[in-house]
């Protein structure tokens, strides 16, 4: 479909400088993390519909079955709830499953096992049971994916104690956060974004982790704080870089993990800038944006110089059609407009 390719090719990411290290594509960074985990820890295994098929989950699982065998890298029946429970049961008994989905939409079929079982056993069994598992999915956007193949569900899961939620935005983080997630002794959701799969980055070789629950400054500035994760954070960073030419210096915080959420880094920045723009790949209501806004109102109110703003999705399901999609999703232009409004004297 040519219009698909046109849309993808329109994506512009800042090219990494090879002088700074090895350049790797996003899927290859994920692939490397999985291979390292499988090599170093015999309890790690990878499952999911299509993990061993020719498209290899955007390329992230390419070659793993050949390298580590069909016992440890395997395709599954279309049984999301059972496979989430099977992963939970295996994790409760010494294994470290990485259960991969093409889209978060399919995780909704498995909410009972994820929310009511995997997230609960450690507490319910008073610490006698651990559930070290990773649930991975790539958020869709565009390509006509529409209401049932584009959902970003982190907001629904934010209020579930026992879960951790990771949302990388760079190939470096995709590798390091995934390795940290696999090492973690709790159920960890890793939400990638399909559009980031086209991004290259500097990715060190070998094993390293990026700590869960810690955000990072992507850009420093004194005029406002932008906090968020994943693809929308990437867009916000692009907007912030452009607005520097207009004299607006935004501070951009990549949360990396939305649960647990690094409150300290956002507070540090808001104390300085007095303005907070919360961005997310999901609906603005009741999710990461809402939580950041609430924290600002509850804890950082006295530092605020203006109202908190949110850029997420409107309270509308994703449309499938190309034109409607352009109205639906935030882009660099819309983010820039909001930043200008916030910083207008």
């Amino acid at each position: 479909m040519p219009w698909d390719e046109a849309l993808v090719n329109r994506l512009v990411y800042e090219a990494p400088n090879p002088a700074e290290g090895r350049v790797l594509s996003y899927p290859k960074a994920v692939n490397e993390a999985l291979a390292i985990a499988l090599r170093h820890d015999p309890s790690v295994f990878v499952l999911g519909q299509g993990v061993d098929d020719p498209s290899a989950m955007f390329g992230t699982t390419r070659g793993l079955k050949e390298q580590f065998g069909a016992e440890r890298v395997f395709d599954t029946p279309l049984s999301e709830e059972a496979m989430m429970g099977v992963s939970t049961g295996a994790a409760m008994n010494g294994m470290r499953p990485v259960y991969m989905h093409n889209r978060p939409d399919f995780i909704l079929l498995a909410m009972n096992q994820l929310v009511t079982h995997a997230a609960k056993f450690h507490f319910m069994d008073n610490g006698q049971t651990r559930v070290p598992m990773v649930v991975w999915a790539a958020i869709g956007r565009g390509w006509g994916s529409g209401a049932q193949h584009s959902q970003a569900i982190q907001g629904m899961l934010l209020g579930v104690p026992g879960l951790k939620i990771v949302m990388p935005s760079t190939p470096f983080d995709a590798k390091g956060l995934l390795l940290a997630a696999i090492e973690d002794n709790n159920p960890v959701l890793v939400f990638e974004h399909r559009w980031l799969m086209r991004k290259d980055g500097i990715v060190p070789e070998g094993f390293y982790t990026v700590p869960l629950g810690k955000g990072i400054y992507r850009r420093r500035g004194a005029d406002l704080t932008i906090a968020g994760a994943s693809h929308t954070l990437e867009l916000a960073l692009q907007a912030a870089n452009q607005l520097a030419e207009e004299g607006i210096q935004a501070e951009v915080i990549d949360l990396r993990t939305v649960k647990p959420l690094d409150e300290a880094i956002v507070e540090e920045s808001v104390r300085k800038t007095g303005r907070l723009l919360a961005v997310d790949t999901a609906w603005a209501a009741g999710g990461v944006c809402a939580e950041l806004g609430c924290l600002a109102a509850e804890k950082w109110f006295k530092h605020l110089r203006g109202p908190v703003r949110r850029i997420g999705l409107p309270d509308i399901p994703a449309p499938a059609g190309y034109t409607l999609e352009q109205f639906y999703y935030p882009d660099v232009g819309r983010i820039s407009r909001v930043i200008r409004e916030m910083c207008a004297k």
Partner: protein
Amino acid sequence: MSIRYRYSGTGFTGWGDRARRYDRAFLLRLFRSMLRIRIIEEEIEKRYHEDQMKTPIHLVIGQEATSVGCCAALTDADLLYSSHRTHGNYLAKGGDLKSMLSEMFCRANGCAGSRGGSMHLIDKKVGMAGTSAIVGGAIPIATGAALAARMQKVDRVSVVFLGEAGAEEGVTSESLNFAAVKRLPVIYFCENNHYSVQSPLAPRQSPDRVVWKWAASYGMHSVPVDGTNVLAVYETAKEAVKRAREGGGPTFIEAQVYRFRAHGGAGDDSKTGYRDVAEREAWEAHCPIATYGEFLRGSGMLDAAARKQMESEILAETLAAFDHAMASPNPVEADLYRNVYAS
């Protein structure tokens, strides 16, 4: 009203010769284990109105033979996963009685530190591995435990108990299918007691559906068994365990049983009208403890004095465990914040 579901088994008729294959101590152990569950639950039931056990209870009275017969075929290393009706499973698997009662009394030294209550009894030392209070919830988890055993190359069988309503959940179909595909060492033990809470089978399953035959359609071994006959249950479970250990894959067992008490709480609730009191009374004539006790008496293995002795020993143990639980400390506020995330 009338009797909807009748006992269709033949009790211990013809079991005289078959039972002689086992030594007397083993046969008596099965009886004692069932009797112990009954006496403990009757004591729980007797005291429940005092409101000191602030936990929902789901008594297993009438269904003791399934837990006991099945667990007799397992080792401590084998894992048992359970539903909300946990008492029989926990005690038959060898779970600690004092820890169980402390949990029922919401004490800090309960088997789950008062996080679980009676629906989440756990004793990992003896393989009582976990439970789910969501119907069907533990089924994929036991399947995953079997997958782990396969991948770790350890000799460990997983068993999960479900009711016939568990066979109505989609996740059960999904799990059976996966276990059959992977030929996993897992046993699905279905206790068909004909009611889910107060809903009879009729609005839930077609009268033409036979649960164990449905399970067989996934490509696994599946068998029916008289759930009131502890020896029949034991032999069926033993064969399933052997199959699992030898790499022969999963087994589904459907046992016909009857719950003598309400779905939850103390006493029977047949009077409320969802089932005929006469139906319960008809099944009580096939009580697994009474019929097996009679069989042992007739075989000259258990006389009235020996049985009396057994009862008084169990009661003494039970009362001591109640005293222990009631004298145990409550949790403190700091306990609430522990073990939310694993370090």
